């Protein structure tokens, strides 16, 4: 590295680096996220608020680790898993990723369907049409052109911040609930906790964070910028989630409204948007879900092909990369079909997908912590002890919560 090309930590560099993390944070608040946070606030008031500072910390740990691995090795997470752990364990990781991401894609389709349903379009019309559009955009890779527009529209969820203030919650109580952990022995509370973790630290985010770094060809010198980026992104993502819970907790919880569909969730925005709350909410929900539904199948397929050495990329044809295109197609078709099925509770789908995400997350985190702790791969940038402890704590926390959740359900609560 020559001196002249060495990057300096200027304001411009920091602001430039902050982009992707912020975008990822905003797009992370997708259909599943909104559903989970809304129903957390509506059903349990402020009782889940204490999770969010913890989540922010853990999200920073996970995202920072993934980005650092990308900077040091220049390889995607899938490549690293395959090269360190061999075929069998890579297959395990990829199956988990495939299941988790398919679940999330289903929830995105459910988000699109319920968002458009607020405009009066039935899901039998909206889902096939949108599915076809998403499939075409993913296949040609041209969704990047409309990515920014969708992100902008999905920014309407920032209005939750304003809505939270207008709803006039008891800020003292909010502050207290944020810092004091509480636990309710109710299976739906526990599964909400798992879902909150699953939607905040989604498995696909690990892959996306690392891919972004690898595509930019960032190296060890960029780690500091990546840290700033992931930290701001994670904090903002969790802050928005925090405000959503406060808003729904202040508006819906006292009224005794349990969020059962998108229209209920939209009514939390009424203090700020009045009669336009539904339109605002629906537009945001559709844009965020649409964006995530365009990204997810590609991320999944790309990771699987990377791990097993098949050709991948939107610029490859069907004959060059049949598996890559096949996986995308199957994921989209399967998700769309599942959502169209009559009698499916859309809001329930969005929530369950986050639970699946949460349950499968520890598997991928174990891979991450072993890779980031490997001196052979990471050199002097390997995980510090604190980072290892925090990641393991996350793994243990989710595992315990999952066990408790299943145990409570089995005991018939």
């Amino acid at each position: 590295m020559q001196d002249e090309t060495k990057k300096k930590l200027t304001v411009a560099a920091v602001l430039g680096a902050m982009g992707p993390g912020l975008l990822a944070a905003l797009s992370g608040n997708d259909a599943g996220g909104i559903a989970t946070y809304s129903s957390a606030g509506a059903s349990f008031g402020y009782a889940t608020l204490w999770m969010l500072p913890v989540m922010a910390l853990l999200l920073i740990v996970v995202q920072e680790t993934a980005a650092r691995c990308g900077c040091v090795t220049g390889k995607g997470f899938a490549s690293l898993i395959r090269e360190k752990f061999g075929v069998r364990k890579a297959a395990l990781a990829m199956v988990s990723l495939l299941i988790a991401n398919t679940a999330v894609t289903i929830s995105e389709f459910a988000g699109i369907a319920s968002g458009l349903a607020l405009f009066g379009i039935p899901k039998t019309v909206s889902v096939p049409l949108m599915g076809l559009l998403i499939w075409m955009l993913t296949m040609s890779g041209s969704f990047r052109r409309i990515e920014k527009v969708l992100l902008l529209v999905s920014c309407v969820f920032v209005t939750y911040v304003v809505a939270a203030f207008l709803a006039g919650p008891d800020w003292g109580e909010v502050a207290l609930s944020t810092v004091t952990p509480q636990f309710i022995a109710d299976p739906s509370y526990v599964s909400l906790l798992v879902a909150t973790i699953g939607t905040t630290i989604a498995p696909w985010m690990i892959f996306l964070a690392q891919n972004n770094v690898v595509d930019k060809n960032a190296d060890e010198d960029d780690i500091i910028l990546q840290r700033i980026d992931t930290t701001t992104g994670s904090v903002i993502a969790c802050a928005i989630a925090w405000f959503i819970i406060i808003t729904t907790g202040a508006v819906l919880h006292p009224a005794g409204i349990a969020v059962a569909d998108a229209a209920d969730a939209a009514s939390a925005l009424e203090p700020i948007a009045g009669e336009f709350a539904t339109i605002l909410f629906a537009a945001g929900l559709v844009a965020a879900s649409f964006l995530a539904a365009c990204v997810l199948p590609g991320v999944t397929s790309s990771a699987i092909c990377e791990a097993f050495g098949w050709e991948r990329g939107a610029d490859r044809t069907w004959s060059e990369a049949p598996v890559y295109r096949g996986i995308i197609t199957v994921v989209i078709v399967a998700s769309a079909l599942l959502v169209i099925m009559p009698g499916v509770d859309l809001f329930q789908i969005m929530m369950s997908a986050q639970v699946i995400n949460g349950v499968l997350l520890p598997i991928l985190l174990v891979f991450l912590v072993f890779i980031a702790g490997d001196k052979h791969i990471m050199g002097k940038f390997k995980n510090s002890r604190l980072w290892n402890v925090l990641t393991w704590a996350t793994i243990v926390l989710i595992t315990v919560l999952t066990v408790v959740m299943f145990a409570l359900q089995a005991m018939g609560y």
Partner: protein
Amino acid sequence: MNYFSEMLRLPVVDSDGEKIGIVNDLGIATGEVFPRVTALAFQGPGKTPFMISWRKYVGHFDDEGVYLKCPATDIRFSYLQPDEVLLARDIMNKQIVDTQGMKVVRVNDIKLSVSGDNQVRLLGAEVGARGLLRAMHPWLEHAVAKICKMVGKPLSEDIIAWSYMDLLERSTKQIKLSVSHKTLSELHPADIADIIEQLDPRLRSQVFAQLDTEQAAEAIAEFDDDELMTEMLEGLSDRDASSMLAKMDPDDAAALIEELDYEKAEKLLRLMGVKEEKAIRNLLGYEEDTAGRIMTNQFVALPATATVNDTIDALRKLDDDFESIYYVYTTDAEGALTGVLSMRTLVVADHEARLSDLAYRDVVWVAPDLDQEEVADEMTKYDLVAIPVCDENRHILGIVTVDDALDVIAEEHAEDLQIAGVSAGENNTGESTHALAWFAQRQFWIVVWAVAACAIAAIAVPSVETFDANALTSGESVSAYLTPLALSALMPISIMPLVLLASMHMTSFVKSSFLEYDDHDDEAKPYLGFFLKMTLVGALLALVVYLCGELIVTTLFAGAQTWVGTTFLACFKAAAVVIIATYASAVIYLAILFRSDDRDQNISGTSLTFTAVLLSALAYTVLGSMPLL
């Protein structure tokens, strides 16, 4: 015992029958076509790694384990030799380049061949599905192989021989591979470029940096993607980049330098030799996409008075990396172009003959500011492999060779196709022939129609819950009131395809007029004429549509309530208005195409059509639903 995956984790047993560890890795000597296994790495108790010589200590091995010749106490441990590669650490699960199939692949397993008791050689890397299945579980492989056999498509092995493997990893790159090895750097530069494009960004610059300057120069010119070119160039040190540019053909170098930012470009130019710098700067003086920009200054021109012998001497003196020579040009005393000789004429001619007697005098040449497309056309017309570029005094400035002309034709062809809406990808080479994609690009109006139909329905028909019961006259039920309303909403919906199809054909007409238009920079673009022509066509179409509506209303709805007829006619009127407006706006699309062509941005024809269809759908939705409110 044919595969490395089956050997891993086998117990290592010494001559006393005691298990001293499990197989961890195998080392191979890289100097042979089928490298021998020379070292055995195993994991002893407490996870301690050991390495011993295979030849000295291993007696025999089978499915159950590896048996050593001597007791554990007599073993002397060894270290990895500089020419040794470890199979598990360096090859298994890693990405390698298949230099025969020219692909980047991942190693799923390694095939070994056993001869005698303990002689093991590496046959190659298994990169197919079979190796993948075996690595998951041998049973899985057997099961799938059997099923495939029953179906009649046996699952074949996909093996890359050692001599066609090029390892990419940093750790193995220092190892000097054997002479028989076909490495990446021996491939054709165009193939190297293809492979590099398949790699991750980090590996890309690593692999690129390992090419020698000359190969790098040739490979970089072959990249399809300008961004990739600059990325590669920025990965090199300034000195390397500059000497690489100097090695390139000046026209390719000029194209590359232009992509860089000003400072970097200046720095690189200053670092190279005076001759090369001058040649490149000269080319950069000409406008983009002209003959001057794509020409090379490497050509052979001699005075017409020279003899064939002189010419051959002159050719012998040229550098090795001189551009291919297709023709020799002759000049008069002032240096003006007078004639041309083909290589063939020169070879068969008498050695003492004068060039002026042999040369063909009627030389076709072009001016440096001629558009590159027209240069290519000239070359096609006169069947030339190179065409001289001359100034007004017929002094030769350079020549445009056939390779650059072919690039121009391919580039222009791709641009035209994109505008015509044939290929969708940004830089794909073959057009997409997938049936669904084909229809999606051409017939997307159906989707637009469906969405707009939903919108009209939502605007026109209030839902039953929100319906204001006071609006009803007494005795009428809600559904009886809503039925005619819903039916009348069908009218604009059913007429809308007319509008959408009209606007689709408008854009395809615009696109073909653009493609057929001969570009003369000095003439003003015929916007006004085009506007009038299109508006007239639009008005005619609109008239036909309106008259159709009138016809239907007077026949079909003759006996119906009057409001039905008026609503129906209003829909046709709206359609006619939108059609006229769409056709009148055709000139805007044409202007957009011209502008983007001038600025050298590529606009895809599909997006243009999509915009037009969307706009007309929007306009019609507003106009068409008005009579219903």
